[in-house]
């Protein structure tokens, strides 16, 4: 076991000290954070300008109703319907201190049409919100004039389609939406890291083989010690990187998000979505699927590298393995569409697909026992795959020359 640790330690330190690891680990989140911060600040500036909305009410009855409905995200300002006031507000729009102003007139009361005066058209989202506020206010005025009173209040607030589950398992709707989003994200991240670190194991094994240093190392180590140490070492690098990224994300959510919301109040509901994120359970499952999925695929990648002698050869040979990692990504949409369909369930229980498909399903509402079952299935498969891969590795790593054919490979596995 000491030998495994020595190999692990070398692999880990060598990779963690590598310039590209440091750049990849810290630059990537920094890039994202920087990107978000810059757009948030730019957006914040613009949003500030967009929020201020002078309203010229020529009907004298609409302003309060419209302003009340524009409460969040806008700062309505009453402008008297005089020629001077109009001139003044038009001037502000021209010089750009406001993006424009809204004029309500009799036509608004009659048909719900109002006019926005500005240099450029308002953004789609603002336009829809203004439109809703104006139409509902006009409706309210007309209904009250016709004698209907408070009883239509609720209708005017916009209505909703509520959801009530008929199943015992499905989570509440907000959670489901958050689950779908988190599921997609989890699948993409798992896909990315498994591929990234699997390929890293492949490169590392191949490097040792092509430089022939493996002959020196294997005069003192058993092949399985070298293979295991390497896989664990690269895996530890992966966990380190994920931990740093997760920490950055947590920092972003606790510190960065309030900062972001300060600039863009309309993003406030992101925070509400966050509460649905299955924080601890989701993270534990994420790590479990990463670790098992990584072990499963990295042993395959190690075997691929051991049977090849050049990088080009390895690039071709790895294709079937990489396909196994990529394939689930094609199913991810249909799985998120209906996490509990038979197809989704079956696909996500296939051990080679589980690492990527099961977590999104769980986040999308699949029962926990299925996640547990898939972990057991992956673990069992990993033991089998590692046994075969270990034998291929043992024979292949010291063999130079032609890549083995399938029958030869089979002989390696039997004879090793």
């Amino acid at each position, binding site marked *: 076991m000491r030998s495994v640790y*020595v190999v692990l330690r*070398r692999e880990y330190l060598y990779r963690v000290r590598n310039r590209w690891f440091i750049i990849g680990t810290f630059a990537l989140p920094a890039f994202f954070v920087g990107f978000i911060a810059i757009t948030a600040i730019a957006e914040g500036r613009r949003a500030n300008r967009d929020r201020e909305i002078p309203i010229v009410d020529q009907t004298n009855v609409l302003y309060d109703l419209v302003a009340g409905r524009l409460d969040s995200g806008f700062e309505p300002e009453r402008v008297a319907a005089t020629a001077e006031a109009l001139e003044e507000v038009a001037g502000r729009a021209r010089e750009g201190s406001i993006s424009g102003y809204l004029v309500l007139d009799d036509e608004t009361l009659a048909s719900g049409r109002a006019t926005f005066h500005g240099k450029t058209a308002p953004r789609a989202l603002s336009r829809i919100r203004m439109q809703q506020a104006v139409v509902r206010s006009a409706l309210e005025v007309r209904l009250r004039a016709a004698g209907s009173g408070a009883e239509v209040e609720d209708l005017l607030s916009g209505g909703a389609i509520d959801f009530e589950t008929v199943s015992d398992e499905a989570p509440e709707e907000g959670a489901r939406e958050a689950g779908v989003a988190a599921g997609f994200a989890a699948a993409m991240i798992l896909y990315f890291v498994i591929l990234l670190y699997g390929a890293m194991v492949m490169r590392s094994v191949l490097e*040792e083989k092509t*430089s022939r240093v493996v002959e*020196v*190392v294997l*005069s*003192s*180590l058993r092949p399985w010690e070298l293979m295991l140490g390497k896989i664990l070492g690269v895996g530890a690098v992966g966990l380190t990187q994920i931990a740093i990224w997760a920490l950055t994300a947590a920092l972003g959510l606790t510190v960065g998000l309030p900062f972001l919301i300060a600039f863009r109040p309309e993003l406030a509901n992101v925070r509400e979505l966050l509460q649905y994120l299955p924080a601890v359970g989701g993270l534990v499952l994420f790590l479990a699927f990463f670790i098992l999925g990584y072990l499963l695929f990295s042993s395959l990648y190690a075997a691929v590298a051991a049977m090849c002698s050049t990088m080009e050869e390895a690039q071709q040979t790895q294709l079937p393995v990489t396909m196994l990692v990529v394939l689930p990504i094609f199913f991810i949409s249909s799985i998120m569409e209906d996490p509990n369909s038979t197809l989704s369930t079956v696909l996500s229980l296939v051990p080679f697909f589980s690492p990527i498909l099961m977590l999104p399903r769980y986040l999308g509402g699949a029962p926990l026992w299925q996640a547990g079952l898939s972990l057991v299935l992956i673990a069992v498969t990993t033991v089998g795959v590692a046994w075969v891969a270990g034998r291929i590795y043992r024979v292949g790593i010291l063999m130079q020359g032609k890549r083995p054919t399938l029958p030869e490979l089979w002989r390696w596995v039997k004879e090793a």
Partner: protein
Amino acid sequence: MTSDAAIHLEGVTKRFGEHTAVHDLHMHIPRGCIYGLLGPNGSGKTTTLRMIMGILHPDEGTVSLLGGDPDEVRRRRVGYLPEERGVYRKMKVLEQLEFLGEIRGLERKDAARRAGEWLDRLGLGDWKAKKVEDLSKGMQQKVQFIATVIHEPDLLILDEPFSGLDPINQDVLEDIVREFHRHGTTILFSTHLMAQAEQLCERVCLISKAEKVLDGTLKDLKARDREGVVAVTFDGPARWLEGPEVAAIERADGGVHVLLQEGGDHQAILRRGVASGAVITRFELVEPSLHEIFVRHAGEEAVGDAGLPQDYRMEEEVS
């Protein structure tokens, strides 16, 4: 018989497809000796060493090492320098040696201390913190050699240890090998440089085309071939030198060395020479060099270019 052996090969054969790389090889290497495995390129030296190291498995025959479980012995008590020099190119020199020392069972501190001492001794003290890829080929080879001996093995197996080194560093390495020998380490090395082997070895095994040609102590081999090589200096045509008793003729000592076939009669040559009218100024039995012994027993074509500079041979005159 095997108990005093550091390495004992019993009828070892290795085939690669149709090609037999090593055929029915018996080799007995006593503990504590310096043993040379000699032969031209492609004769099976590296394959033999790789089988001793367990990198290849013999198709037939057995390998035993220091009388113990070969796998265990290899991992802890053997230092192996492969023919193809592999290093972790991107690792720093000292860290690399630390790692290689550690996997051979040294504590990290110990490995670091020994690596430092060796690097200083071999003039690489200033390169400890440099990446291996920044070193010259010769320096890398020294680093590899350190890695081979850092755990003070009982048995050193060196595949062409001197190739690629300049004469000064070859001498440095030879001195170190002798030093290990004095401390009782058994040393087996392969080379195609006969002269080198002659300086260093107590025992040799000559192989050619996958087969052993002969083996034994250097002294015995030379004694056995005492009447096998004649140094000749003469003026005139050279045709008379050729004959059925001659295995090969090579330029040496300002004249030629005539290598006799097994049991060849040197007087027959002399008679031919006198009859041809050549002016013979020297005709003398000399102690054969290792190279000459090899040529006598394996034939010139079997030896190939084993360790001789091109102009050493006498192509035109002989053919």
